[in-house]
């Protein structure tokens, strides 16, 4: 965002308009140096490119590009390299691309500027020594230190209309926005979102469903829209997945919870879970006792949902029943789900709450 606006600003001046070349690279797209090099040649429209095809091998390409860059001096066109996801570029083999770019920028050749964008604070630690020594160590931290009042103001400014053709509607709209955002419920929602994370994208995520819900039948924003949107964003996804399990699977989960409680985070296998389940099911009439094979099928469903995870990835060496597993749920999540579970038998609730049958 910042970089984009700066580039726009720079391009406005006449002298810069024709004399600056910008090369955009992204660590997600250019995953190795060869691809990055092709992309640079393509974006610079160098002579040996015809259309979008690049000729020549990697070595030739690099050599050519370096020569082209070295041959220039202060008078030639400056190039701005923008490297998004900079930390991913630092994971290339040998960091050859970074080394060469920094090298050119250090020596008096073509004037180039390398701008790296990353979200890792320790990104300079990733660089090799020879690369780091060529790096100018100028860093611009964009920390998000806005206060809650700024956050609310930001929210209002995002929602308000400016330069809208229908002035009358725009002013009515803006007034409504102000009223809604100032109201206590929306304040509360915003505050909760703010304490979760301060970043603006989180705010936008919150606002998008609110805006999307507008229609002819529902022309203005209300406070309940905010509440609804926040609720859908902040639901605990694992609990909601637990809600869809069958009674038998839920019983297994509770048995696993007891096992991890009793043996202090030791991994368990299916046989232990099954014997724990049997201990419970045979005492209580409300629970039907199922065959081992049926229970095993339920167990495998839980594995497929990744609610439990095998300890080791070796699958073939051991029978399914004896593979060691760990439970990936918090006890609070389980108890929480049981409260909301429709038609949950009371014995099961008691069993979950007490650690011994």
């Amino acid at each position: 965002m910042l970089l984009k606006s700066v580039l726009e600003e720079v391009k406005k001046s006449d002298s810069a308009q024709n004399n600056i070349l910008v090369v955009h690279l992204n660590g997600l797209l250019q995953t190795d140096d060869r691809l990055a090099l092709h992309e640079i040649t393509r974006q610079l429209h160098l002579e040996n490119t015809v259309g979008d095809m690049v000729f020549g091998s990697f070595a030739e390409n690099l050599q050519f590009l370096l020569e082209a860059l070295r041959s220039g001096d202060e008078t030639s066109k400056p190039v701005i390299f923008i490297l998004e996801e900079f930390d991913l570029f630092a994971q290339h083999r040998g960091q050859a691309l970074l080394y060469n770019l920094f090298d050119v920028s250090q020596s008096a050749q073509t004037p180039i500027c390398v701008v790296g964008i990353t979200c890792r604070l320790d990104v300079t630690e990733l660089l090799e020594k020879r690369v780091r020594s060529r790096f100018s160590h100028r860093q611009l931290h964009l920390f998000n230190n806005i206060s809650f009042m700024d956050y609310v103001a930001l929210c209002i400014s995002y929602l308000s209309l400016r330069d809208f053709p229908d002035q009358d509607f725009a002013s009515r709209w803006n007034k409504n926005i102000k009223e809604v955002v100032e109201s206590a419920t929306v304040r509360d929602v915003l505050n909760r979102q703010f304490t979760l994370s301060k970043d603006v994208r989180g705010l936008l995520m919150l606002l998008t469903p609110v805006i999307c819900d507008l229609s002819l039948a529902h022309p203005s924003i209300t406070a309940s829209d905010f509440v609804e949107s926040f609720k859908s964003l902040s639901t605990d996804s694992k609990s909601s997945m637990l809600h869809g399990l069958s009674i038998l699977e839920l019983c297994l989960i509770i048995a696993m919870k007891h096992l991890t409680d009793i043996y202090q985070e030791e991994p368990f296998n299916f046989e232990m879970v099954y014997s724990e389940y049997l201990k419970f099911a045979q005492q209580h009439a409300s629970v039907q006792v199922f065959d081992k094979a049926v229970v095993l099928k339920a167990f495998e469903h839980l594995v497929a949902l990744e609610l439990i995870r095998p300890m080791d990835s070796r699958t073939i060496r051991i029978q399914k029943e004896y593979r060691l597993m760990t439970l990936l749920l918090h006890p609070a999540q389980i108890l929480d789900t049981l409260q909301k579970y429709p038609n949950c038998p009371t014995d099961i609730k008691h069993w979950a709450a007490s650690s011994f049958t």
Partner: protein
Amino acid sequence: MASAESSGSASSRYMGNDEDLMTEIHKKILCRDRQIRMLLSFFGERKHKTPSSIFIYGHTATGKTYIITTLMHILQLPNVFSNCIECSSSRYLFEHILNSLPAGAANGENNDKRISCDNMNDFVRLLKLEVGRRQLLDETIYIVLDKAERMREMEFNIIPAFLRLQELTGLNICTVMLSEIVWEKFRVGTGFCEPFPLHIPDYTQDELARIMMLDCPGGWSTETYGNYVSLFLSVFYQICRDLRELRHMALLNFPKYTEPIKKGEATEKDSRKLWRNIEPHLKKALQTVYLREVSSAQWEKMQNMSNEENEARKSHIDVCSTRSYLELPFYPKYLLIAAYIASYNPVISDRRFFSKKASRISKRSKLIKKHERASNHLLGPKPFPLDRLLAIFYSIVEDKISPSAIIFSQISSLVSLQLLGQMCADGQIDAVRYKCLVSLDMIRSVARTVGFDIMKYLYDFV
């Protein structure tokens, strides 16, 4: 231009104005009103920007794929549907998406050149080109990725790049990911753009019944089938909520339910009689067909047969997974038994069982055993060295046999049959340890065929 007109009218239509489309959607998709409303509000009109990615999660058979495909079909949105199991590598995925982009308004010239593409960089570049060529620039393109959990097995950059595809290409693209796994398990590394999560909840029992009513077979009133479905759910709902499985099972067992009516023993109103008839049958189905031990076709055949006279024979038909039956030569049977004993007995007990001068078990050692935490049959097999296997083998086989090459090759063939598991310590050929991978039922039946009482030799059961 006709096509432009139609797309224009469609775009003005579906903001909830056109009742026809909405009713069509609601007729096709039951019990999902809230989710549909949310998705439609995200989609907006064709020219509008859509959120760059939506992540839809929910259980198996809650209609994730169905909702998306039906919506896309009814609203005629330009979309690419790709299944990440079919597109097993990123290359297939890219090529599938590029080659099956909808034709859009570009009519006529269709040069069927396959586009090939093997990395993300080319994909983004070609996608821009293709979309421009097909004149889809002013519409939202939806890329639907079904079974998105498989994408985690591809390169590290695939998921983050697909999430911010809108930003990377500068096109109006929306990535819709469908998965059973929750979103928290997708996050890796840096540079992640969070998608909008949308949870598809499970169906309640009533909703399941309502949907299952749809495939009421002809010739029966919906009331009869409704009664049947509620009976059926009362048995199956406890262990299974998978709609697809439930529907399959319900249809399979319906003929049995209607049998008394056909014979004239009961009327359609006589629900108790029907229930008594069907209940044991359903319970049996739970144990056989649900686990796929008997294929559905076999099950149907069995039902037809029971219509005639041999009710008794029904249960004797061999189920296809004969769980505990194994045909082996004589010595390998003993080897397997020895391996089982070695896996499930602790080393210290060997002396007691197999020594010539076996002392009687004192009361004290019995007491000690009681205090042990869990039996070995709970913890699984333990590894053992080859020497111990052979020692036990010689002591349980009565006749004299020499350690010939055949015996050793039989051990390795047991390993290749996966009856034994082999674990090398660190690549040393003389330090191989084995585990027995056979269940107790199976080893008992093997022992019975050679007339060997294995229960006497197992530490847990003495």
